[in-house]
């Protein structure tokens, strides 16, 4: 079992849990957290390199490093693992954000309990990305969800009980749909009469075959269930309202992890389960979700324009950006889907950066109202410059990650939309692509509004003049994220190739692509 | 056809059962209620004897009349002063109780009436189960034998003893 490298993505956090449980002071806890997250980064880089090597050697299997261990025989539940380019990208993202997150929570109260829950959360996240077994995936999904309640409820601020409850209940509601969908998939995983399976790869390998795929009638039922189930986590309109409240109350590292990684679970799940396994229904029903996600793209951006709480603004911008992820996935087009994954990476990093910075500013000024702050550039230039960079990434400045992701999405979506339009299949995709494009303007409006009010202009509150700039751990946390954002922005083709080679041709054969 | 004696005996038993049970739930003196209960229990024991279940009747008298009622009396003496009346029933609660009783009566009565034909069969002959049969059945493990429930009941009683001690213990 331990011969497979992927299992260590779960083992390392578990070891970290044990280590933190044994720690006796905050110094040791930090040491364990940092060492562990560094080990995770190293591990994901190693996996990435090995993956590239194997691909370069001509390996064509849809997933590599696959392995499977029986877990519960009667229901064919296995701990099946395997990764492709997308999962590796997600693993990298998660490990970086866990790393930055541990630095961002350097001075948290009750560090032991906090880190225990935080690492438990990351067990769920990593587990989710490495498994290819639907049931195990769902289990890890829940493992990632539950600590969130405690992390927000105990370490949060503001209306934390309400927010924690709301977030958990809404996500649980989503996972109820999801569980129905997954069980449905299991029971129709082999209509030809063979052994039922939870394994994504097995189901997907049959998805292109009209006889052996999940029956089309059932796809039409199961697709919405799974898509909505994951879509709730991906903050799809109208199920996004947990996001502003949840992020507003969550402590810094949790916001980072949540917006940075957990919301990506939604997008990843939508792609990996809903679209990958049920391409027929994806094509038939995409228009409904296209409308919803298209709405969330502009809707989130418009809402962010008038909010005055930094975290609310960022949460709504997350709604907009994550809407773009789901939107692009639904275009069912390699370019757009690649863009969606890039957007996940990009949004994960920059929103984590945003939340880290907001947390640092809030830790100093004790307010998140932009009307009560101003001129922070004069007081904390380092944090302010980072904030501007994050903002620029968010509004899609070339050279930073947001631009490449958005452009890939727009180009891909436009191709899909024009193909529909010229093929006489209606102009819904085209219209919504153009609507989504409009978000780049609205994004600029709210980002610059915040930057202008918060960082520039005269100092609003004279008490702020005595505040200090970033400490070394805060610098480390932000620099890590900025470097990653810039790396994606400057060398996008590496990520692009990593991702788009993994879109399975068999699936797209069904979609006629 | 029964003998006149047994009919008279039956009448006495049935009447005392009805009268004393009604009295037990209507009297306001709690000690009297316990006493009426005792009589009702005796009447029940009598019924068992009439049905030829002598062992059962003996157990009824020994355990119920001899044990439980004594417990009741002790409890009553411990918890209420002599001469205390329980509270007067409000007409509403009395009405509600009455409704419940009548409803039970109707439903169960209807059940009895609808199965009338069977219930008017004469009493079949039966060999009175002797002590050996009772003992064998109680200690056997075959079909229709009760070792396991017996043991379960003994455990229950043990648990009950311990529970009683723990609960009633002075802290």
């Amino acid at each position, binding site marked *: 079992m331990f011969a497979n490298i992927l299992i260590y993505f779960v083992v390392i956090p578990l070891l970290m849990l044990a280590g933190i449980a044994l720690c006796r002071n905050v110094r040791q806890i930090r040491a364990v957290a940092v060492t562990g997250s560094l080990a995770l980064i190293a591990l994901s880089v190693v996996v990435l390199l090995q993956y590239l090597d194997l691909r370069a050697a001509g390996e064509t299997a849809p997933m590599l490093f696959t392995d499977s261990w029986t877990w519960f025989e009667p229901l064919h539940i296995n701990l099946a693992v395997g990764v492709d380019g997308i999962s590796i990208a997600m693993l990298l993202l998660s490990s970086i954000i866990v790393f930055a997150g541990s630095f961002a929570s350097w001075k948290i109260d009750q560090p032991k309990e906090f880190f225990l829950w935080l690492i438990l959360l990351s067990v769920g996240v990593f587990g989710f990305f490495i498994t290819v077994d639907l049931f195990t995936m769902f289990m890890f999904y829940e493992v990632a969800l539950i600590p969130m309640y405690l992390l927000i409820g105990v370490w949060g601020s503001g209306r934390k009980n309400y927010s924690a409850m709301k977030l958990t209940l809404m996500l649980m509601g989503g996972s109820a749909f999801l569980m129905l969908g997954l069980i449905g998939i299991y029971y129709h995983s082999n209509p030809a009469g063979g052994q039922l399976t939870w394994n994504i790869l097995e189901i997907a390998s049959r998805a292109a075959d009209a006889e052996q795929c999940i029956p089309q009638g059932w796809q039409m039922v199961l697709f919405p269930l799974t898509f909505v189930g994951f879509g709730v986590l991906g903050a799809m309109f109208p199920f996004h309202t947990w996001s502003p409240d949840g992020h507003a109350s969550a402590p810094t590292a949790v916001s980072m992890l949540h917006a940075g990684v957990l919301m990506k679970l939604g997008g990843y799940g939508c792609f990996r389960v809903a679209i990958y396994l049920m391409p027929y229904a994806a094509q038939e029903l995409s228009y409904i979700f296209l409308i919803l996600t298209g709405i969330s793209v502009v809707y989130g951006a418009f809402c962010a324009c008038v909010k005055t709480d930094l975290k609310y603004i960022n949460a709504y911008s997350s709604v907009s950006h994550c809407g773009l992820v789901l939107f692009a996935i639904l275009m069912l087009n390699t370019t757009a889907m690649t863009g969606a994954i890039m957007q996940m990476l990009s949004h994960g990093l920059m929103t984590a950066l945003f939340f880290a910075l907001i947390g640092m500013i809030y830790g100093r000024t004790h307010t998140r109202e932009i009307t009560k702050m101003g001129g922070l550039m004069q007081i904390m230039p380092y944090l302010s410059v980072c904030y501007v960079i994050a903002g620029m990434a968010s509004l899609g400045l070339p050279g930073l990650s947001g631009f490449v992701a958005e452009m890939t999405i727009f180009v891909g979506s436009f191709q899909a939309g024009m193909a529909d339009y010229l093929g006489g299949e209606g102009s819904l995709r085209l219209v919504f692509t153009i609507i989504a494009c409009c978000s780049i303007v609205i994004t600029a409006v709210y980002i610059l509004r915040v930057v202008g009010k918060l960082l520039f202009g005269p100092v609003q509150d004279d008490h702020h003049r005595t505040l200090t700039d970033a400490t070394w751990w805060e610098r480390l946390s932000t620099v890590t994220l900025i470097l990653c954002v810039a790396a994606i922005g400057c060398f996008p083709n590496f990520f692009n190739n990593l991702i788009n080679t993994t879109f399975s041709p068999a699936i797209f054969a069904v979609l006629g692509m | 056809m*029964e003998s006149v004696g*047994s*009919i008279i005996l*039956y009448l006495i*038993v*049935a009447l005392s*059962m*009805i009268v004393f*049970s009604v009295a*037990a*739930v209507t009297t306001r003196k*709690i000690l009297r*209620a*316990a006493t009426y*209960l005792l009589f009702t*229990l005796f009447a029940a024991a009598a*019924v*068992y004897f009439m*049905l030829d*279940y002598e062992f*059962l009747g003996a*157990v*009824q008298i020994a355990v*119920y009349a001899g044990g*439980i009622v004594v417990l*009741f009396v*002790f*409890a*009553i003496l*411990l*918890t209420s002063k002599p001469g205390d009346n*329980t*509270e007067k*029933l409000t007409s509403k*609660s009395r009405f*509600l*109780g*009455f409704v*419940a*009783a*009548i409803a*039970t*009566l109707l439903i169960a009565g209807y059940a*009895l009436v609808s199965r009338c034909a069977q*219930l*008017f*069969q*004469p009493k*079949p002959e*039966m060999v009175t189960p002797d002590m050996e049969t*009772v003992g064998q*059945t109680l200690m056997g493990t075959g079909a229709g034998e*009760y070792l396991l*429930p017996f043991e379960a*009941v003994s455990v*229950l*009683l043990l648990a*009950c003893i311990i*529970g009683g001690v723990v609960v*009633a213990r002075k802290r």
Partner: protein
Amino acid sequence: MEITAIYYLVPALIMFCCGVYGFITRKNMIAMLISLELMLNAVDINFAVFNRFLWPGQLEGMFFTLFAIAIAAAETALAIAIIINIFRAAKNIDVRSLNEMKF
């Protein structure tokens, strides 16, 4: 006059209804317990009667009654222990004063 099963069942039913009435109306816990005993006894009688009249060769009803008596005894003992404990704490044994355990 033949004394058939119904002759035993009807008094037992009346006894049971008395138990119901008493259990619902009385507020004194011991009185409620007494009503409970009445109901139990009524049921016991039914078991015995059905056994005797319908399946005279077997002993199930009888043994059920036997066990019921044993359990009733245990239950009563425990209930009375609890009642006395409550009396110690609340100085009365009115069931209405015992609603701390709601919700």
